[in-house]
């Protein structure tokens, strides 16, 4: 005990359990998966774990059309989803801020989608967009087009839109709640002063409200970027990458390659691409958040 006291400072001792667990569950497995990505490991052939193939998995990946489609689709999906969530969230926050009563109740309702499991959100929209029993087709038929059954999740374009909608439904409220919290905490004096000086509402929004909200935008983005891969759950249950791989995202492709085709080496090579993508998003938003906090000072 005395040895530990003298060698290890309190913060190191306090952080020890956290780091032991992260090393055990994240760092060691990721090193192992890095090694595996240089082998031709297949789940059905345990011996192949020792079969070193160098960069072959990565070389194949670079020329793999399916991989690039999934990668590109993931990138587009994330960009569109995050921007849409931000714009819609901002709109909703501004709208609710203008309400004179009932803000608390509405904020509580908006927490609803946050509690949903992504797999549940996926199931919910799978049900709603189902061609036979879905809410959307039921509504269309009730409006008079009785013979119309649109196969939302079978058509590649509408299937992608349905997945996007599930993602936006789930995450927009987080943006709205955080931005609303920002709006409510905003001092009113600068706005009044700007109005007295003759600014129109757009100018007030553009030069006073929006800059003030930026740290909140980045908090929301940073929280969101930690968990971008949860779209996997939704795609898994809604379309499982189909029809014909047209809704395949990087993450579903990894699962298919690793578990279904049992090509673990290849899947691990792919998962490094997905990890780099996530790290890029996270570092980008955390940097922005830190910068915004520095310039804003007091908001924290």
């Amino acid at each position, binding site marked *: 005990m005395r040895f530990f006291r003298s060698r290890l400072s309190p913060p190191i001792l*306090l*952080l020890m359990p956290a780091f032991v667990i992260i090393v055990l569950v994240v760092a060691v497995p990721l090193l192992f998966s890095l090694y595996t990505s240089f082998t031709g490991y297949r789940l059905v052939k345990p011996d192949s774990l020792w079969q070193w193939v160098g960069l072959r998995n990565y070389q194949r990946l670079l020329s793999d059309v399916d991989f690039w489609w999934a990668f590109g689709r993931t990138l587009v999906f994330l960009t569109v989803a995050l921007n849409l969530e931000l714009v819609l969230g901002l709109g909703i926050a501004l709208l609710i801020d203008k309400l004179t009563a009932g803000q608390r109740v509405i904020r509580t309702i908006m927490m609803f989608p946050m509690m949903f499991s992504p797999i549940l959100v996926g199931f919910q929209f799978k049900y*709603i967009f189902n061609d036979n029993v879905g809410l959307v087709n*039921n509504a269309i038929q*009730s409006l008079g087009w009785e013979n119309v059954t649109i196969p939302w999740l079978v058509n590649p374009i509408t299937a992608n839109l349905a997945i996007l909608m599930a993602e936006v439904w789930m995450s927009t409220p987080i943006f709205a709640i955080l931005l609303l919290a920002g709006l409510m905490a905003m001092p009113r004096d600068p706005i009044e002063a700007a109005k007295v000086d003759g600014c129109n509402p757009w100018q007030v929004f553009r030069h006073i409200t929006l800059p003030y909200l930026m740290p909140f935008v980045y908090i929301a983005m940073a929280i969101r*970027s930690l968990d971008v891969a*949860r779209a*996997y759950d939704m795609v898994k249950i809604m379309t499982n990458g189909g029809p014909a791989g047209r809704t395949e995202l990087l993450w579903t492709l990894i*699962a298919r390659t690793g578990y279904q085709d049992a090509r673990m080496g290849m899947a691990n090579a792919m998962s490094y691409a997905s990890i780099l993508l996530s790290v890029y998003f996270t570092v980008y938003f955390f940097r922005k958040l830190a910068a915004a906090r520095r310039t804003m000072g007091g908001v924290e």
Partner: protein
Amino acid sequence: MERSWQRWLIRFGVFIVMAIICVPGLWIVMTAFRDNVEVMARPPVWIPERWTLDNFRAILGLSDSQQGIPVIRYFMNSVIISVTSTVLAVLIGMMGGYAFARYRFKGKNVAFLWLMLSRTVPGISLSLPVFMIWSRVGLIDTDFGVILVYLALNIPFTIWLIDGFFRQIPLSLSEAAQVDGCTRWQAFWKIEFPLAKSGIASAGIFAFLTSWNEFALASQLTRTTASKTLPVGLMDFTAQFTVDWTGMCAMAVIIIVPALILTFIVQKHLIAGLTFGGVKG
């Protein structure tokens, strides 16, 4: 005159937004209490004509007509896994958050960055090596194996949140207590812990929700009723070409209700937690 016109427009807009948020969930809840025949009915039946608990009886294995899915087992697994990993993550998060907020040490920023980066690894990417290692050391399909992974998922975020809360408590408070004869340990429990309580509570809720709702890792690391959680069990209802809609909706209700109750109890702390105490809820 124009102002009241505007006000109604705003109310209408808010109403539409709330409808979009609520209708999908309500549709699931209604189907859970619906007769199976009504789901397929043409023309569609909007409001169930006869509310029934049959779907719940069926999935709990209480009716003779249909083989039940071991929902109660899944529920128990979910509770054990989520509660254990939440309690441990909050304890470890408090220690870590306190270390980051109150001490200066070498490599602090680097340590924090790596901690956060460990959280960004997509679940499915992490599941590949964890699956390979866990199956070699016999942790596949055990509660312990899942709890360990969820701890690693939850620790970075709890440390991040709790660190933010401790930082807002002026150092002078606990220093004053120490001058008056408290040890640092006593000062923590008497001064800093009570002040950071709402942050710790929200960290706990987020940890619980993450564990309760997680699917990507659990779907690979669990196999049987020994450790399958509710989100994984939801997939039991989908066969290749058929989906048991009413059963799945009943299951969905079972998954969402505990999360809902818990969140409403502590919702005041949630917003303060998300904005790191910068804004009161």
